[in-house]
């Protein structure tokens, strides 16, 4: 069976290389702009995990646990096609007698990719068995991490409902142990429940309702952006409590980051517009579908911006963030490979104006 595992490793490397090529510019830009924060980011992960082991209030520990579960879902979702070799699942079965090796390969690759689980494991190992017994919530949290990751691979609907329950439980659970138990139990129960077929509304198809069908078919393209925006706003709310004096700087940065997610939706939606150009032209709807695509993206950027401004008490200058949205979508349409540079330049320019003149 070694040949199958060798194949999966090769497929993983090829998919990962393709993903890295796509993200090359962004990775480079982030490293260039924020390289001084990278050590703090790594320390921040361990600091957060430390809050799970030793905490002042259970509520903080629960919030940290939820933040980690949401963050890992967003990170792993990006790499999921590489882990599962999603495009060739049926081909795997032509090589195998049972799914055992397929699932084993999935789990091994998941283990390689799950950096937040690895960080928790590292922390657990460094604590030693004796100390670990005094903080049983850490192994419990690791179990939740692993199960949530498996749900992401095999039961995305279960992951969504479990994240929702975990979010609500932050305010309802009396302590972190109960919180983790409820989250894991819900996930386990939801995993084994019979699949429900909900009859979603079927509006008459038009160039506007088409996007409803697209989002229904590819919900992750909106959900991960909503999750990332939520995490960014949550971080902003925490900063508002910790360092209110610096909030106006953080607010601008958070709004810019959220705009990055939502304007990049243009790339995903373009697969349905430019990728099906012949189809839309054959219907004479190519102009309308482009208009509705832009309306969708500007609408979502506006909602995200408004949420940030309201929650973080944004000042008038933050209007400049939403004003740059047409520039970003124009760049995505005409020069998608320069999107990262343009977004980076816009961000630096606005931050400089803010720091130097306001």
């Amino acid at each position: 069976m070694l040949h199958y595992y060798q194949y999966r490793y090769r497929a993983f490397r090829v998919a990962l290389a393709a993903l890295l090529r796509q993200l090359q510019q962004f990775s480079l830009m982030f490293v260039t702009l924020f390289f001084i924060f990278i050590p703090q980011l790594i320390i921040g992960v361990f600091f957060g995990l430390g809050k799970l082991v030793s905490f002042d209030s259970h509520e903080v520990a629960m919030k940290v646990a939820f933040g980690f579960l949401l963050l890992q879902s967003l990170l792993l979702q990006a790499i999921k096609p590489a882990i599962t070799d999603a495009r060739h699942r049926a081909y795997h079965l032509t090589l195998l007698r049972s799914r055992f090796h397929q699932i084993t390969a999935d789990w091994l690759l998941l283990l390689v990719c799950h950096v937040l689980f690895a960080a928790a494991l590292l922390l657990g190992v460094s604590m030693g068995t004796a100390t670990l017994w005094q903080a049983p919530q850490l192994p419990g949290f690791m179990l939740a991490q692993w199960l949530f990751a498996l749900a992401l691979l095999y039961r995305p609907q279960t992951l969504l409902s479990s994240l929702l329950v975990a979010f609500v439980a932050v305010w309802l659970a009396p302590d972190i142990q109960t919180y983790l138990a409820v989250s894991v139990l819900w996930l386990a129960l939801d995993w084994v429940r019979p699949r429900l077929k909900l009859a979603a509304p079927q509006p008459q198809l038009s160039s506007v309702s088409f996007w409803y069908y697209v989002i229904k078919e590819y919900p992750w393209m909106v959900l991960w952006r909503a999750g990332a925006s939520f995490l960014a706003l949550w971080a902003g709310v925490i900063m508002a409590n910790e360092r209110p004096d610096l909030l106006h700087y953080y607010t601008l940065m958070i709004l810019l980051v959220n705009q990055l997610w939502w304007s990049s939706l243009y790339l995903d939606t373009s697969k349905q517009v430019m990728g099906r150009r012949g189809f839309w032209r054959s219907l004479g709807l190519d102009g309308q579908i482009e208009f509705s695509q832009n309306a969708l993206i500007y609408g979502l950027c506006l909602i995200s911006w408004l949420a940030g401004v309201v929650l973080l008490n944004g000042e008038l200058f933050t209007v400049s963030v939403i004003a740059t949205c047409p520039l970003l979508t124009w760049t995505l349409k005409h020069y998608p490979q320069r999107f990262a540079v343009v977004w980076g330049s816009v961000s630096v320019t606005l931050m400089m104006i803010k720091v130097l003149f306001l």
Partner: protein
Amino acid sequence: MIEIKHLKKVYLHDPVFSNYCAVLSEQKLCIEAPNGLGKSTLFRIIAGLDDAFHGDVLFDGKQHPVMQQIVALASDSIAFPDFLTARQLLQLTAKSWASPWPELMIRQMEFEAFLDTRYGALSSGNQKKCQLINAMMRNTPYLVLDEPSAALDHASVDVLLSWLIHHPAQVIISCHEPQPFIDIGFVTQPLFE
């Protein structure tokens, strides 16, 4: 009659057509050429779905600003949204071009049972039926069918032939097994003379 004058079309530095001229004058015409020489590309250009070319396409001696208005194309090269059902796709076409619902065509092709199946989940034969109905329901003066009999069962090919015999449009097809079409009056013409 469709005239193509001085057509130049390049795919990633590879010229598909270079100063290509052709007159497609037969009312029922089958374009012949081996695979990969540009039949589907030519059809997309004629149907107004690809405007990245140089040259002129004339319909009865005149240029038409919106070619897709007068040409309906059925081709695998049109990427339908595979998450929409066949009914939704046909409804969209009916709405866009104010065409009547193709009840008879659907019934004759025995396609009723698949109307609520997603396009991506249809068999290749049923996808072809959906493409054909989608193009023919528009009743345009020019009808272009790219490999119309590919993947169709015998009964469906017979239905298609019965439609084409009486179809008033100029019908241009490409087909690697053209005999049934020649039998109903199609004339063959090589892509490059």
